[in-house]
């Protein structure tokens, strides 16, 4: 660990066992599909076999006639606006007039068993008028492309466009004068890059249950990254008052952004309303691939220029990102993140949000940034090579730092980008020689925002002086532990004396999603605030007992003190809420804003490429990252290692492989090739700690940065091994044989 200016902590920085650990190693923890309610009906969704088709007629009569079938719903069961339209997330949950991608939900059946529900779904007859699909982002931008949404017009700085189009938005960023700056560059690198649609690949398929009571109270059990957004979105889609919707989050088996939106919840709710019974809905793996939100493919033309001494002075990018079947690609984020690791005075970006006949784009870990990084980090490498500069020294020379204009023009506060580059330069890995034929070493930097948003927690003292922490962010990777540790630190008590609990939407104040690298950061702030509020309340109750004023009582490292009198947190807790005392609860709520600084990482990778087969083997991998303050270093390392390996999968083998009709040919874990234990080495980590000035403990979000650098780091390493630059993902053996030997 590389650390700067870190205060002394007792709990923060230790590695305790997570509170929910026992349930998860014994099989007792209940995930989405494990929820079972008395009298439950089981449902199944019928999905479109066509990527683009008008739905002319849906005949559910045969399905309804099957014994055991209790209800069938279609998009017609969802409320519409006055003009008959529905919002995108409603139309995505159950199709309207058109099926917009293969796998688009068309109808759903509830029956006494899933077996019957599946048979009934097969009996639903749908009459389609099949339309030509548009599957490639640049094809979709052409004037003669099939139009997916007749009403769609391009929003742009010039105002809305006039013609129907698949380009939902044209965004622009412009700092300095890129055109003039390029003219004065001594070296320019440019290229056209593309990435394919990829899936988050969480191992738990989506699963939800719903119970709609006759009084209108709707309860939803679901595996989600955000129970409060599910409540809001379900309320919107169903046209049902938000106060009548309660969401109970189950344990969640991975999300990476993919479990933010609604898919099954309102469908289960409609079926429950029709039948008066609880209804459970779950996806199988092919449903997950075809019917949820992966992240869209991209096409990026990029250009980067430097002076002869290596100073980057001009950048340009034309970025087209797929939104899938609806507007909403990650192009804005990609554009904001692309140049963030560098201090470049002149940058121009054109970005396009483009609809295609593929599943609706969803966030996937640092959404938008990996594709942008794949382009820019290769160009940095090319310039370094052209100018004869070590690629890390090139980065050190150009690193963004405090005061550099960051994404969107705001100057960065204190960041740890330069420290990451320094840590890489002095790492054992970078200083070890790489020998042997067909081998190469690559590096790449990466940036991601810290998203703040809203969080709210309650804390209450128990009679034995322990503290319960009530929170609303589902724990996807150890946040019960990271929040409990921050509360223990705030209160000066042992980690074991804090009991964190994730509760439903009726039982705690509003919390935004567990996403955007925000939970340990933002909910951590709310937890810290709740701890301070609790101490203040304790002082008030203690003051009369000590015959002092509350202001005279000091609290530090778990001890209350006023003059000669002192007491530990537990002693005071016992006096206040002990046998004759009252209960005591405090809360903390924050709105930490949307963009709150950011975090950087740098990865180093050694590869070997088999020249006969084109297969790349990862020999050694080191991930370096500024975590601000690492609350629980093991889980920080875990995020870095997991992100790196997801990135390795994206770089080498993962892709949605579509046929010309828009059918995903590889919708299984057999052919959607995520890395296995045998595909990766141990992932070494170096945690850099440059405390975040906006957080009481200096926390930066750590979850997303580590998926940004791997794509370009591996591309740069493959270049060093083969002499051929890689412009397209995945860099599969097939692709490597094509680019290195012309075998197609």
């Amino acid at each position, binding site marked *: 660990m590389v650390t700067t200016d870190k205060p002394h902590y007792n709990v923060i920085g230790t590695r305790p066992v997570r509170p929910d650990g026992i349930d998860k190693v014994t099989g007792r923890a209940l995930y989405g599909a494990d929820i079972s309610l008395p009298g439950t009906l089981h449902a199944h969704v019928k999905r479109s076999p066509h990527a683009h088709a008008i739905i002319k007629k849906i005949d559910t009569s045969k399905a309804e006639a099957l014994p055991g079938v209790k209800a069938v719903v279609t998009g017609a069961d969802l409320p519409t606006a006055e003009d008959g339209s529905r919002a995108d997330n409603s139309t995505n949950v159950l199709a309207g007039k058109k099926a917009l991608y293969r796998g688009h939900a068309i109808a759903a059946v509830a029956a006494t068993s899933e077996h019957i529900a599946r048979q009934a779904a097969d009996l639903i007859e749908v009459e389609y008028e099949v339309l030509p699909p548009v599957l490639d982002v640049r094809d979709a931008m052409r004037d003669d492309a099939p139009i997916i949404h007749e009403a769609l017009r391009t929003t742009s700085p010039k105002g809305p466009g006039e013609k129907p189009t698949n380009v939902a938005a044209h965004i*622009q960023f412009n700092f300095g004068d890129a055109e003039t700056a390029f003219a004065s560059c001594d070296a320019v690198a440019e290229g056209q890059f593309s990435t394919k649609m990829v899936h988050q690949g969480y191992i738990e398929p989506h699963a939800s249950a719903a119970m709609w009571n006759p009084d209108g109270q709707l309860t939803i059990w679901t595996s989600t990254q955000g129970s409060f957004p599910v409540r809001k979105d379900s309320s919107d889609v169903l046209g049902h008052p938000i106060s009548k919707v309660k969401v109970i989050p189950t344990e969640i088996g991975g999300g990476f952004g993919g479990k933010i939106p609604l898919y099954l919840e309102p469908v289960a709710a409609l079926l429950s309303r029709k039948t008066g019974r609880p209804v459970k809905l779950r996806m199988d793996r092919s449903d997950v691939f075809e019917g949820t939100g992966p992240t869209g493919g991209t096409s990026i033309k990029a250009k980067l220029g430097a002076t002869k001494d290596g100073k980057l002075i001009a950048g340009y990018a034309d970025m087209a990102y797929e939104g899938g079947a609806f507007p909403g*690609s990650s192009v804005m984020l990609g554009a904001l993140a692309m140049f963030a690791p560098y201090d470049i005075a002149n940058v121009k970006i054109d970005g396009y949000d483009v609809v295609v006949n593929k599943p609706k784009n969803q966030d996937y870990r640092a959404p938008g940034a990996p594709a942008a990084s794949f382009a820019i980090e290769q160009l940095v490498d090319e310039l370094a090579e052209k100018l004869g500069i070590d690629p890390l020294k090139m980065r050190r020379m150009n690193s963004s730092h405090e005061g550099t204009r960051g994404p*969107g*023009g705001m100057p960065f506060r204190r960041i740890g980008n330069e420290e990451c580059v320094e840590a890489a330069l002095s790492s054992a890995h970078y200083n070890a020689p790489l020998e042997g034929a067909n081998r190469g070493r690559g590096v790449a930097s990466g940036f991601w*925002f810290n998203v703040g948003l809203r969080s709210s927690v309650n804390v209450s003292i128990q009679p034995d002086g322990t503290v319960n922490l009530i929170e609303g962010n589902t724990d996807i990777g150890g946040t019960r532990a990271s929040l409990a540790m921050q509360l223990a630190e705030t209160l000066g008590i042992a980690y074991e004396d804090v009991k964190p609990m994730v509760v439903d939407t009726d039982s705690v104040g509003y919390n935004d999603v567990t996403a955007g690298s925000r939970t340990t950061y933002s909910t951590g702030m709310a937890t810290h605030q709740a701890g301070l509020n609790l101490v203040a309340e304790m002082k008030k109750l203690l003051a009369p007992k000590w015959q002092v004023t509350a202001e005279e009582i000091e609290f530090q490292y778990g001890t209350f003190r006023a003059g000669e009198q002192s007491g530990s947190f537990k002693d005071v807790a016992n006096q206040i809420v002990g046998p004759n005392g009252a209960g005591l609860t405090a809360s903390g709520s924050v709105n930490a804003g949307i963009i709150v600084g950011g975090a950087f990482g740098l990865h180093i990778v050694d590869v070997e490429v088999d020249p006969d087969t084109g297969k790349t083997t990862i020999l050694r991998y080191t991930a370096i990252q500024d975590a601000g303050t690492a609350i629980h270093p093991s889980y920080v390392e875990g995020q870095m290692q997991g992100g790196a390996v997801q990135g390795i999968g994206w770089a080498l083998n993962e892709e949605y492989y579509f046929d010309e009709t828009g059918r995903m040919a590889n919708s299984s874990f057999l052919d959607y090739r995520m890395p296995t234990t045998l595909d990766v080495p141990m992932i070494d980590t170096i945690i850099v700690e440059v405390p975040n000035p906006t957080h009481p403990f200096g926390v930066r979000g750590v979850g997303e940065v580590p998926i940004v650098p791997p794509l370009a780091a591996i591309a740069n390493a493959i270049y060093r091994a083969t002499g051929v630059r890689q412009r397209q993902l995945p860099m599969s053996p097939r692709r490597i044989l094509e680019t290195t030997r012309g075998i197609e």
Partner: protein
Amino acid sequence: MAVVRIPALFQPLAGGATMVRASGATLLDVIDDLERQHPGFRDRLIENGAIRSEVIIAIGSDEAAGLAAPVGEEDEVHLLPAIAGGR
């Protein structure tokens, strides 16, 4: 007088300018001054008495918590389109 940096999205409103000087002690005052110079800004930035959800406004390095946020004479005010993830 604070400097308001105008992103491409809003440049048409400001006659193509990339920055505009505007005065005011609070963010609301600054936006009002911006509106006087370039009508249309207020509606694009404010809704129901609060910063619109689709924009982020930062003063210096920090996101403004609300319209009452103080703005110093030397401050830079940044108008940013809010992060549009795929929701």
